[in-house]
């Protein structure tokens, strides 16, 4: 973590719990004000998320640019963190490819302040326990000043594949 930088947190999206994972990590580890980009129809059904950092995006509407600009604006302030699911859809936890939507590039280019980009792969495991455990594999993707969309996309995908391999060797 780089002090004095806001954080753009990119997370893999495979479950209902992902937003809560991101919120929990923000509170306990990343120590920023939590904001999260949510699909508009999902947010409308649960408007209370609006009070705890949720803001909407609707990819099919013209307003998509407004949402991306709003995210960038939040990231101008070093106190803030914005969690985004770059895959743009729920995908299997077993997936090996992480799709990074173009919107990420747009957000990062619009940030005027200093922002660090962090990605994590989360994996659910059970082993001996009846309750699942979640394992996070973090990756520092640099700051908005040296951001290159294609390079970060490759970096995230190779990190995700490596994380999957490491996960297999997890001690339990």
């Amino acid at each position, binding site marked *: 973590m780089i002090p004095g930088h806001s954080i753009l947190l990119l997370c893999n999206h*495979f*479950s*209902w*719990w992902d937003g809560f994972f991101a919120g929990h990590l923000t509170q306990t580890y990343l120590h920023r004000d939590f904001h999260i980009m949510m699909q508009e129809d999902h947010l409308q059904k649960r408007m209370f998320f609006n009070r705890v950092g949720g803001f909407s995006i609707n990819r099919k509407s013209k307003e998509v640019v407004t949402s991306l600009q709003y995210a960038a604006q939040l990231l101008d302030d070093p106190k803030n963190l914005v969690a985004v699911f770059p895959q743009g*859809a*729920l*995908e*299997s*936890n*077993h*997936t*090996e490819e992480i799709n990074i939507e173009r919107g990420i590039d747009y957000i990062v280019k619009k940030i005027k302040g200093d922002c660090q980009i962090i990605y994590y792969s989360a*994996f*659910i*495991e*059970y*082993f*001996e*326990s*009846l309750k*699942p455990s979640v394992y996070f594999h973090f990756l520092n993707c640099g700051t908005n000043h040296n951001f290159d969309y294609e390079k970060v996309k490759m970096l995230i995908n190779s990190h995700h594949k490596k994380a*999957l391999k490491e*996960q*297999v*060797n*997890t001690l*339990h």
Partner: protein
Amino acid sequence: MIRNQKNFFIRCILHYYTRWIVGRHFHEILFNTIEVDSNRSILLIANHFSFWDSLILYIINLKLLKKKFHVMVREDTTLHLKHLKYGGAFSVNKKSKDMLESLDYAAGLLNDPQNLVLIFPQGKLYSNFVNDINFEKGVMRIMAKAEGKFQLIFAATFIQYFKHKKQSVTVYIKNEDCMGKGFDDLKNAYQKYYDSTKLQQTEIVI
């Protein structure tokens, strides 16, 4: 070796407890149907990544396979959880000579067409994300001893969440012909089945 034991009262408690706990923790259990031969017992081979595996397959047995459930469990687990033996668990210890006794006992169970024996050939718990399924050789001894008397079934279990708060489980089951299969053939056949089912799970996008 610890053998499974009969106790009507404890078995009933375990039966209802398993149904209750699986029902409570899972959003849904999805499985495909296959033909079950009533004249042969069932040897069920499955992947092993959690404590839930046997409980889920117990439910699949109740709903689809309808045989008497038996499962081969590591000896330290049966010693730790003493009630498992009343639910059809018998022990195996890879490091002891007892192992042959356990394998022969499993083969003996397969002589009765009403029985089902569940085996995790991986031999221990592995990560949910393994690509290569470790296969222990003991299963071949069981198959050789009980040849012709059982129906071989492959099961591959996957747990995922997607849009629900509770996890859902998908079990892919398939009849497999075991006649004349050597260890490598069996291992490759299961690996191929696991790969294809895992790919189906991986490709889901919501």
